[in-house]
């Protein structure tokens, strides 16, 4: 196997836990969007938001805002709060990505999610060129998982809505909005675990 294939293989194997996480979490976000967002064609909405945000928390949090037609300022404030932590991820990547070409770096920054950040900082690849390739493959793979997850979640609800009445879907999915709170609780629990383990 050539070196490109080897690096891709490595990125793919490392991405498998993310595959599990993104497709299922994305699917849940997609179902929530389809059921509650009140947009004309939810699969397209899911696809666009998934590709643009690449942020699970924002994908969940945006749903009630869209449904209430919240102001753009409110959306900006919510996004700022939810994704504030991303502003600190780049700090660790400054030196690691120093030699990455401009447009590739724009893409890697776009994909700077919790999961990509964790894998990219943990990687032990020493060769700089190979490391850049690794980051690019990893980002592209994880983006595809996330988009597939969200879009398929929307599609399932959209198809069901054609078969059943929207009121029945609404009644059946009542309470599903807890998924977002649960996501926050899970993140918080893991953060606290890290805090107490490392004494930070």
């Amino acid at each position: 196997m050539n070196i490109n294939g080897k690096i891709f293989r490595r990125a793919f194997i490392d991405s498998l836990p993310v595959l599990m996480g993104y497709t299922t979490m994305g699917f849940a976000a997609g179902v929530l969007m389809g059921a509650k967002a009140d947009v004309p064609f939810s699969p397209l909405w899911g696809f666009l938001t998934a590709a643009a945000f690449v942020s699970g928390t924002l994908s969940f949090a945006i749903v009630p805002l869209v449904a209430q037609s919240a102001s753009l300022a409110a959306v900006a404030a919510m996004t700022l709060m939810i994704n504030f932590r991303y502003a600190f991820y780049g700090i660790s990547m400054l030196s690691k990505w120093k030699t990455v070409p401009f447009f590739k770096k724009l893409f890697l920054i776009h994909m700077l999610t919790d999961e990509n950040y964790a894998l990219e900082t943990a990687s032990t690849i020493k060769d700089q060129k190979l490391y850049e390739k690794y980051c690019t493959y990893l980002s592209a793979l994880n983006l595809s998982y996330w988009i597939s997850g969200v879009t398929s979640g929307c599609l399932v609800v959209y198809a069901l809505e054609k078969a059943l009445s929207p009121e029945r879907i609404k009644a059946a999915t009542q309470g599903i909005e807890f998924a977002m709170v649960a996501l926050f609780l899970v993140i918080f629990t893991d953060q606290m675990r890290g805090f107490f383990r490392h004494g930070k």
Partner: protein
Amino acid sequence: MESNRILYLIALVAVGWGVTYALRSLPFVLFSRKARELPPWVGRLGVLISPVIIAFLIVYSYSSLEWRTFGPYLAGAVTVALQLFWRNPLISIIAGTATYMILLRV
């Protein structure tokens, strides 16, 4: 009416993406030149600030649930307990959400 809604939705994606991208690219913009050394407090603040924000979001999002009943608190306890012992985010989220959905219906 419908076209206004579509314009609104497009603007919404643009705002969400714009703010998110600005945050992700902030260090690259601020510390692009070698001369500027990274102050050590930036890293420490980064570790501290995230849980505080998430905690705030939890409190905020509870206000849109049936927070006067015990349902959301029990569902929250189920989520946290499962995450503490099982460490599988998906199981914790599905179980917590299912608990909440069931409690809403009894």
